[in-house]
């Protein structure tokens, strides 16, 4: 059996654990055809995956991954050519990645995982992008709305205030820095919570270009030597706060999953993985 590993990364709350939960359900439930199929439960305990998949099926939000824990989960899968593979993922807190931007260092164990990964999945919460708003634009808008412009309590600079796209570009640059120099060439950019932005009518590529232009320019320039694809992903299938009953009512929970690549839609979360491992 071929041993493969993929790095799942993203800032806190970007949907990494929800992805793993939905993926484990999709593979084990075998409700729809997928690019990578269930192999077996041998050589491992699936307690964590079963626990998060159970919450997912119940349409309950996942608990935040504890900071500092480095949890590796493995799945025995079968590829399209019937070859077996064991795919390992780290289930790491987003704080581990944020630390790289804010504190400019990386836990040695996390570095090992990043360096060993054969592919990188980068999660971005499509509905929680921190954009670089300018004072002059906000002030102008306030005036045009007829509201008074007031000096607020000035907030001192903190790296956490940096726009989402800057933190992500820096993360990808750091993966390529001599300190880490990861081996992965392929990168899947996963725009999570796609259901919340799908009504805007953009393809994932257009969304990246318009909402995260710095990241888009970085990737297109080839400076990071990434072979990359962009996906829109709704692993939850909706908002658990408002749509939980509708989601639970589905006879085949796998159909809650939405994966958008270009103009194509499917429920197959393994398709980006199959490409990454290709």
């Amino acid at each position, binding site marked *: 059996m071929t041993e493969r590993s993929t790095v799942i990364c993203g800032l*806190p709350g970007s949907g990494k654990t929800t992805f793993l939960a939905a993926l484990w359900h999709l593979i084990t439930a075998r409700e729809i055809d997928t690019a990578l199929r269930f192999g077996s439960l041998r050589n*491992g*305990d*699936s*307690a*964590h995956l079963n626990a998060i998949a159970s919450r997912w099926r119940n349409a309950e939000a996942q608990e*935040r991954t*504890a*900071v*500092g*824990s*480095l*949890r*590796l989960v493995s799945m025995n899968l079968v590829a399209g050519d019937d070859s077996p593979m064991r795919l390992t993922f780290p289930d790491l807190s987003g*704080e581990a990645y944020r630390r*790289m*931007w804010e504190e*400019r*260092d*990386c*836990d*040695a*164990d996390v570095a090992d995982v990043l360096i060993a990964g054969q592919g990188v999945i980068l999660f971005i919460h499509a509905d929680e992008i921190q954009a*670089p*708003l*300018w*004072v*002059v*634009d*906000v*002030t*102008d808008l306030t005036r045009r709305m007829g509201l008074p*412009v*007031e*000096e*607020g*309590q*000035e*907030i001192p*600079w903190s790296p*956490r*205030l*940096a726009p989402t*796209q*800057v933190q992500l*570009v*820096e993360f990808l*640059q*750091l993966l390529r*820095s001599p*300190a*880490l120099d990861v081996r992965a060439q392929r990168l899947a950019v996963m725009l999570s919570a796609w259901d919340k932005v799908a009504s805007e009518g953009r393809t994932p590529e257009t969304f990246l270009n318009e909402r995260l*232009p*710095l990241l888009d*320019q*970085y990737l*297109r*320039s080839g*400076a*990071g030597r990434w072979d990359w694809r962009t996906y829109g992903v709704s692993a939850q299938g909706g908002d658990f706060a408002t749509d939980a009953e509708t989601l639970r009512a589905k006879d085949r929970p796998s159909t809650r999953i939405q994966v958008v690549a270009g103009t194509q839609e499917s429920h197959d979360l393994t398709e980006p993985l199959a490409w990454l491992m290709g």
Partner: protein
Amino acid sequence: MADDNSKVTCANPECRVGETGKCVEGLVLSECPHYGSAQESAEGIEGIEDQADTGRREAITLPSGELLSVKEAASLLRRGEARVIALIGPTEAGKTTLVASLYDLFQRGPVDDFQFRRSETLYAFERGCHEARAASQRATPHTKRTPIGSGVGFFHLGLCGAKDVALEVVLSDRAGEEYRAAGDDPSVARDFTEVLRADVLTMLVDGERLLDLGARHNVRSEVEMTLQALLDGDVLSEGQRLAVVLTKADLIEESAQRDRANADFTRLAENVRRLFGSVFRTIEPFQVAASPSTTIVPRGYGLSDLLGFWTAPTTIVPARVLPLRLPARAMERIQAVRDE
């Protein structure tokens, strides 16, 4: 990690709240579900590798993302096509604002023919942009002054131009007081490595001071004296280009003194051409509003033209060819070849 005797504890073994008073997850302490609890065992769930409790290895230090030193900038320049831009001007002329705003334009997409490729100073850029960003909660944009005595540092922008040509641009950042000091004593300029190595010198003229009737003549004098100090300090190189940049064009545009200030700037640029035209390969005037406080002109007004000037092809200064003096007699010519 809080020690056993500490009253302040956290269930998360990574959290050092006992030492720092801060939650590692960035939460208010009263909202942190782990705060105040005994430390959890990092024992993993069976079958899952949980390595939190294993022997700690030292964290790997990553590149700082801060301004580059002269050595770091030199190393970057060796990697390919590059331009060094020396930004010169008095305090508050807007040197750091200009660079930070140019970077911020790329946050919204390509600037003319140029696309962002990469940057080794994103952290420094972000700090420089903060007070012009809504996240600062300011009502008017601002940029922190470069502290005196910090020497020179370099911002870095890796760009991709027309025809996908990669270009590394490094932009100097030095306190205005140090350039002013060179006007009093040109020997100070000998430490200005950024000027010596620059492809383009960019002399900033403070538009706000040009509007001030009391300051306008001194503005012109300071520009000329600073350039003279660079010349007399022997830090100018052959083939360099000079951009004379009027900053804060938004304030001029809004002012009743607009025509007078614009005429002053035109005269100033003409004088610079007259006095230093033989020193620089080209001298061009520009007007910018890097971070306007109103929407009378867009943020970054004029920067794309300046970027075009900065990134224009450099001229390779031909090596000086010494005249060949051949001896008149054939035997002497042979002897000369033997001697070589």
